[in-house]
C-alpha cells in the first residue's frame, strides 16, 4: 500500500508511544530488586561475551610482550586448540597468565568461558523465541477456535509435558549430530507445544470474550486478523515473560546434554564441565583441589539461568496485574 | 429525635500520588425513623462516607477529623473516639450496612440461612441456635422470602432473592440505622421496585432510620424523606426531597434533576453537564464544581463556598445559589 504521511510521520508517533509505555513499565520494574539484579547479570554476561576478541590481544600485550616473534604462531588463548607450553603441568591453577587457570588439555579457562557466552545466549534466545512463537500462535488459536483444535493442542501439550525431553534428546543424539542450532530448534520446537500453550491459551481466553473482539468481528475482521491483531498483542507480554523462562530452560538443557557429551558443540559451559569430568577431575578429593575446572562454568550456568528467571519473575508482576501489590 | 449527627467528617485516602479527598467535610443529621438519600456520581465518595461512619476503612485511609454522634437510648457517644472493641458493639446493632454489590458476597458454599445465623452469633454469642433459627425465619418472612429457603445455597437464589437475604442479614441485630449502599443497582426494575417497597415497609414497621445511597435520583426520590447531593467528596446540597426537586439551589443539583429522561409527562430537553467529574486526587482550590458550572466566576475558582443553611433544613454550598424558577443553560 502506498502510504502518505501528514504532520508527524506515523512511525514517529508510534515510537514515541512505545517509548512512553516503556518508561512507565520501567518505573514499575525498577522496584523489583531481584529482577534488576537479573538484568544486571545478563548485561554483564553480554559484555563479557562481547569482549572475547579483546582478551588474547590484551594478554599478549601484557605477558607476551618480549616473546612476540618466538611464539607468534602459537595461540595459547584459543579456547579450543590453544595449548600453553610455558606452563609446566596442566591443569594449572589461576595465575596472572591464565586468570582462571587452564584445563587438563592446557587450554585457558577464561577464554573458554568468554567464547561460550555468546553461544549460550544464541542457543537460549533462539530456542525461547521458537517456543514463544509456536506457543503464542497455538495458544491464541486454541482459545479462539475452541472445539477440536483446542482439544487436540491441549492433549498434545499434556503429552509433551509428560514426555522427558532430555531423555528424548539423549536418544536423538545417537542418530543425528546435535549442533547448537539443531539443539535450539529441537528444544524450542518441543517446548513450544508444551505447557506454554496452556498458559497462553488461558490468557487468550480472557481476551477472546472481551467485547472489542466482537467489535472487530462485526467490522468484518477475519479469524486470522482477529488472532493476530487483537488476541496476540494482548497476550504478547505474557509470551515475552515465558520467553525468559524458556531461555533458562534451554541453557540448562544444553548444559546437561553437554555434560554427558551428547552435543556436537566446539565449546560451551557444559562442555567445560564435561572435560573436567571425563578427565577424572571431578571425583573425590579432586573436586575441591581443582575447583577452577568446574566452578567458573558452573557458576556461569547458575547465574545466567537464574538471571533470566528473576528477570522473568519481575516482568511477570508487571505483565500480570493480579500479582501487582498496590 | 435526632439519632445520628455527623459533623465536618473528613477522611482521605493516602496514595503514592497524594491524598484522595474522598470525604471532605460532610455534615448532616438524621432523625429517628427518618430516611435520607445520598445521590452522586460514581467515585464521588458515597461509599466512603458510610465506611467512615462505621469505621470500616482500608489501611490507606486516614481519618482527618470530624464527629459522628450516635444517640442510643438517650446516651450520646462519639463513634469516632470509641476504642475498636466498643465500636464493634455499635456496628450491626446500632448501625448496620447493606454493602454495595453485597449480593455477590454471599459465600457460595454455605447455606444462606446459616450465613445469617453466623452473622447473628458473631454479635450475640449468647443466642441459642434454636432462637437464632426462629429469628432468621422471622426475618425471611419480613423481607418477603419463603423461610423454607433458609437451607438453600446462594446459587439457588435469583439476584433479587439474594438482595433480600442481605437485607435480612442487615436486620438481624435489630439496628437503629441501616445504611443501604446501592441496594438495587444491577437489579431489574420490577425486582428493584419490590425490594424498595419491602425496605420502606420494614422501615416504617420497625421505625428505623435509613440512609440510602444511589446514583439514581429517581430511586432516591422514591424512598427518602430528605436528600443529600454529593459532588467530589462534599455535600453540595441537602434538603427535604420535595424542596430538592422543586427548588434546587445548587447548579449541580439542577443539572442532575434535568439530566434524567422520564417516562411520564412532557418529553423535555435534557441538560448535559459538560466536562468530567473532577479527580479527587489533590483537587484544585475553590468550588469543585466550578470547572463545569455555567455560573462560575473568579470567586468560585479561588474560594471554597461554605456549606450553609439557607432556610430551615436546606443546606447549600454555592456562591451563586439559584433563585426559585431560575433556568440555567449548561450549553452544548
Amino acid at each position: 500500500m502506498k502510504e502518505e504521511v501528514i504532520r508527524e510521520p506515523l512511525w514517529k508517533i508510534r515510537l514515541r508511544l512505545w517509548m512512553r509505555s516503556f518508561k512507565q513499565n520501567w518505573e514499575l520494574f525498577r522496584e523489583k530488586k531481584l529482577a534488576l539484579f537479573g538484568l544486571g547479570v545478563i548485561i554483564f554476561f553480554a559484555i563479557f561475551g562481547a569482549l572475547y576478541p579483546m582478551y588474547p590481544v590484551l594478554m599478549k600485550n601484557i605477558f607476551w610482550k618480549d616473546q612476540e616473534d618466538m611464539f607468534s604462531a602459537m595461540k595459547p588463548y584459543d579456547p579450543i586448540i590453544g595449548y600453553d607450553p610455558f606452563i609446566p603441568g596442566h591443569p594449572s591453577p589461576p595465575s596472572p597468565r591464565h586468570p582462571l587457570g587452564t584445563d587438563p588439555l592446557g587450554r585457558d579457562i577464561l577464554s573458554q568461558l568468554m567464547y561460550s557466552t555468546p553461544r549460550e545466549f544464541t542457543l537460549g534466545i533462539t530456542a525461547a523465541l521458537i517456543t514463544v512463537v509456536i506457543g503464542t500462535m497455538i495458544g491464541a488459536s486454541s482459545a479462539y477456535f475452541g472445539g477440536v483444535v483446542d482439544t487436540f493442542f491441549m492433549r498434545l501439550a499434556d503429552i509433551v509435558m509428560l514426555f522427558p525431553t532430555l531423555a528424548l534428546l539423549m536418544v536423538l543424539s545417537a542418530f543425528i549430530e546435535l549442533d547448537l542450532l539443531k539443539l535450539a530448534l529441537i528444544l524450542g520446537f518441543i517446548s513450544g507445544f508444551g505447557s506454554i500453550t496452556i498458559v497462553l491459551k488461558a490468557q487468550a481466553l480472557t481476551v477472546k470474550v472481551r467485547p472489542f473482539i466482537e467489535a472487530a468481528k462485526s467490522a468484518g475482521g477475519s479469524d486470522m486478523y482477529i488472532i493476530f491483531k487483537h488476541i496476540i498483542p494482548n497476550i504478547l507480554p505474557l509470551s515475552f515473560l515465558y520467553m525468559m523462562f524458556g531461555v533458562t530452560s534451554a541453557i540448562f538443557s544444553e548444559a546437561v546434554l553437554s555434560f554427558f557429551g551428547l552435543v556436537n558443540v566446539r565449546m560451551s559451559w557444559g562442555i567445560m564441565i564435561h572435560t573436567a569430568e571425563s578427565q577424572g577431575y571431578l571425583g573425590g578429593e579432586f573436586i575441591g583441589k581443582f575447583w577452577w575446572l568446574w566452578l567458573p562454568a558452573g557458576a556461569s550456568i547458575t547465574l545466567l539461568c537464574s538471571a533470566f528467571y528473576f528477570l522473568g519473575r519481575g516482568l511477570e508482576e508487571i505483565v500480570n496485574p493480579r500479582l501487582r501489590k498496590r | 429525635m435526632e439519632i445520628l449527627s455527623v459533623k465536618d467528617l473528613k477522611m482521605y485516602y493516602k496514595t503514592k500520588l497524594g491524598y484522595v479527598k474522598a470525604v471532605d467535610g460532610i455534615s448532616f443529621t438524621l432523625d429517628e425513623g427518618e430516611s435520607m438519600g445520598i445521590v452522586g456520581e460514581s467515585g464521588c465518595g458515597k461509599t466512603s462516607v458510610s465506611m467512615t461512619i462505621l469505621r470500616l476503612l482500608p489501611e490507606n485511609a486516614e481519618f482527618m477529623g470530624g464527629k459522628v454522634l450516635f444517640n442510643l437510648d438517650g446516651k450520646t457517644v462519639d463513634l469516632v473516639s470509641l476504642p475498636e472493641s466498643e465500636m464493634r458493639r455499635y456496628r450491626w446493632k446500632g448501625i448496620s450496612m447493606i454493602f454495595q454489590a453485597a449480593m455477590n458476597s454471599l459465600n457460595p458454599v454455605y447455606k444462606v440461612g446459616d450465613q445469617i445465623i453466623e452473622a447473628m452469633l458473631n454479635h450475640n454469642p449468647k443466642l441459642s441456635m434454636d432462637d437464632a433459627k426462629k429469628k432468621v425465619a422471622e426475618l425471611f418472612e419480613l423481607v418477603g422470602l419463603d423461610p423454607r429457603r433458609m437451607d438453600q445455597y446462594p446459587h439457588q437464589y435469583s439476584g433479587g432473592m439474594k438482595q433480600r437475604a442481605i437485607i435480612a442479614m442487615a436486620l438481624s441485630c435489630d439496628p437503629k440505622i441501616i445504611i443501604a449502599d446501592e441496594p438495587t443497582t444491577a437489579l431489574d426494575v420490577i425486582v428493584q421496585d419490590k425490594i424498595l417497597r419491602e425496605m420502606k415497609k420494614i422501615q416504617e414497621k420497625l421505625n428505623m432510620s435509613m440512609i440510602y445511597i444511589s446514583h439514581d435520583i429517581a430511586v432516591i426520590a422514591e424512598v427518602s424523606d430528605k436528600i443529600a447531593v454529593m459532588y467530589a467528596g462534599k455535600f453540595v446540597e441537602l434538603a427535604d426531597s420535595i424542596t430538592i426537586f422543586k427548588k434546587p439551589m445548587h447548579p449541580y443539583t439542577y443539572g442532575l434533576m434535568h439530566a434524567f429522561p422520564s417516562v411520564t409527562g412532557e418529553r423535555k430537553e435534557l441538560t448535559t453537564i459538560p466536562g468530567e467529574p473532577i479527580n479527587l486526587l489533590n483537587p484544585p482550590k475553590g468550588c469543585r464544581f466550578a470547572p463545569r458550572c455555567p455560573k462560575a466566576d473568579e470567586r468560585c475558582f479561588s474560594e471554597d463556598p461554605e456549606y450553609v443553611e439557607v432556610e430551615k433544613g436546606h443546606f447549600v454550598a454555592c456562591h451563586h445559589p439559584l433563585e426559585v424558577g431560575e433556568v440555567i443553560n449548561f450549553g452544548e
Partner: protein
Amino acid sequence: MGNEKTILKIEGLRKLFPAERRLFRKVRKFVHAVDGVSYEIREGESLALVGESGCGKTTTGKILVGLYEPTDGTVVMDGRDVTPFLFESYGKAENYIRRVYIDKFKNGGNGNHIGNFEEYKKIFKDKFNGNEREFVKYILKDRKKEMKNLRKKVQMIFQDPYESLNPRMTIFDTISEPLNIHNIGNLKEREEMVAELLDAVGLTPPETFMFRFPHELSGGQRQRVAIARALILKPRFIVADEPTSMLDVSIRTGIMKLMLKLADEYNMSYLYITHDLAVARYMSNRIAVMYLGKIVEMGDIEEVLKNPAHPYSKALLDAVPVPDPEVKREEPNISGSVAKPINPPARCRFYDRCPYRMERCKKDPHPQLREIAPEHHVACYLFEK
C-alpha cells in the same frame, strides 16, 4: 412517519443456545434466547428494544451484526434476503436456502415477506431448471463478499466502554480498524476521516485524542470513540446495546444527544437496546417490549407508554421509579421473577407471572402479535375475541 422505506425487516428470528454440554449425544435442553421475533425498522427511525435482563435483547442485536448465527428466521435488508450470508459454513447456508426457498418452490408455500422471493423463484425455474445444487451455488457464490458488504451497512455499539476498546490500540487504530479491514483509503485519507469523526463525536481537537490509548480516556470519551468506530463505515443501521448504562449520569445525556444528532446527520436507523423505559422514550420513536425471547408489545412509543396493553408492559411501566417525590406510583401487578427460558412450555411465556391469566392462556400456544390500535401491536389473549 409511517410509510418511509423499510431498511431492515426481521421475520420469525430464533436463536437457541444449548443449555447443557453433552459429549457424543444430542443436546436436548436449549435456552430459547430469541424465539420468533419479527419487526421492521424504517429509514431514519429508532426502535427501542426493552425488557428485563436475559430476555434476549443482546442476542437479537448480535444476530443482526453477524456475531451469532440465527437458528431460524429471515433477515431482510433493503428488500433483499441476507440471511444466507449470516452463516459461517456453506452447509448451514445451503440448509437455509433449501428450507426457505427450494422446499417452497417445489411444494408451494408463501414467501411474500421476502422481497426477492419471486425473483429467486424465477431464477430457480428458468435459469437453473430446478437444479437445486446449482441454484444454491449461484446464491452463495459471493457470500464472503456479501457478508462484508452487510457488515458495512450494520454496525454495533457495545454496552461496556471499558471493555469494547482494545487496550493496546491507539484511538486512531481503533477507529480506523474497519477501514483497514475493508481496505478503504490510504493512510492520509484515513487520518482525515478519523479526525472528522472525532470532531463529530465531540472529541476535539482530534489531534490530541488520536494517539492516546483507551486507558487515558474517561468512560464517556471511550463511548464516544466506540460510536466513532461504528460510524466510520457510514452504516445505514446501528445496533446500540445499552450504550449509556455504564456511564455516569451527567455524561449519559451527552452521549444520548450525540447519538440522536448523528442519526439525523448521517440518516441512520437504530435498534436501541435498553432496559430503561425513560431512555427508550428519549431515544426512539417506536418500542418493542420483549419477554423471554418474545416480543409481547410493539408500537409507537408514546402510544405504548401511555396505554400499555400487555400485562407485562404495564407492570414494567409501573415499576419505573419516578424522579418526583410527590408522585406515588401504583404497585406493579406481577409476581415472581424472570426465569431462564430453557425449553419453555408452548403456552404464553408470561403465563407464570401474569395476574390476568385465563384458562385459554394455559392451553393455547403463545399468542400472536395483533394490532389493537394503529401502530400498536400486542401479543396477549386478553385482546383476542
